[in-house]
């Protein structure tokens, strides 16, 4: 368990180092994701202990965004300065993007598993 937590942290650390060293546009954790993927590919599977740690973190992924979400309060004044354009833009653009991307992927990717939420 502890070994796999160390592995996850090491992947992120190597990712952070790589972004600094090569000035990639990707953040460290995303490069760390690629590294952990490579580890699983070399091992030919996801070890049970790694799954135990990783899936626990992922099950609570929403929680991890709460502190950053509360940070929005610090920008209340900036938001308020141009509240209407900002709010219209965020709601409109996000919904249009979700619909267009989902529609495009469904059109191009025939025959996947389907479901409703």
């Amino acid at each position: 368990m502890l070994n796999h937590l160390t592995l996850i942290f090491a992947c992120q650390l190597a990712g952070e180092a790589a972004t600094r060293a090569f000035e990639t546009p990707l953040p460290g954790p995303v490069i760390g994701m690629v590294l952990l993927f490579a580890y699983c590919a070399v091992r030919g599977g996801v070890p049970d202990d790694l799954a135990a740690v990783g899936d626990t973190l992922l099950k609570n992924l929403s929680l991890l965004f709460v502190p950053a979400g509360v940070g929005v309060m610090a920008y209340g004044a900036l938001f308020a300065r141009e509240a209407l354009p900002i709010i219209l833009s965020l709601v409109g653009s996000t919904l249009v993007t979700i619909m267009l991307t989902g529609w495009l992927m469904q059109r191009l990717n025939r025959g996947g598993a389907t479901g409703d939420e």
Partner: protein
Amino acid sequence: MNDVREVWVYLSTTPLLHLTLTLAAFAVGSAVYERAGRNPVFNPVLIAVALLIGMLTLTGTGYERYFEGAQFVHFLLGPATVCLALPLYRQFDKVRKSALALGAAILGGSLTASATAVGIAWAAGGGRETLLSLAPKSVTAPVAMGISEQLGGLPSLTAAMVIVTGIIGAALGPLALNLIGVKDWAARGVAMGTASHGIGTARALQVNEVAGAFSGLAMGLNALATALLLPLIVGLMW
């Protein structure tokens, strides 16, 4: 027994208070979400954030003081992002089969996200700094802040916009996809990850692992596509 005030003064300076409040607020958010039959509109992040902002405002606590406690939760965001490799690995056969569609959808989504964000704000009378800060709003926060800085926006304002975008996507995205009949799990995941990064991915993962795997990958690839393309496009236009 000590004065309540003294106890409060002590508690308000220990990181444990705001760490506990963060977990408690999320527990309330999750309970409401479950009670509402997992209706995405009752997004637990949205509820927790609203409760915490209300509480901090009432007690006159600044964000920096709050973050001293909340940072322990925030820290785990990096390792959790690394772990998105696991659903991706498990679903990789499906991902490989639809690689072309995936690339095209993410590219289309990346361009749409920036173009509509800037276009709508411009039409509604937004200033230049606001438009440039909005342009990378669908990209995961650290990358979006970098792009914003490069374009001449305000990185910190962009960070706030990114979070709000994620919450809007997680809360309303599933309904929008139902409305237009997108039922393919891969397509639903790609849409959530491209338009609303990690917060959308968190929601997708809760519902279906295929959707979660595609969403996490779309988040990463959209960050890459937007970081490479957006500065070029803005450079040509401005």
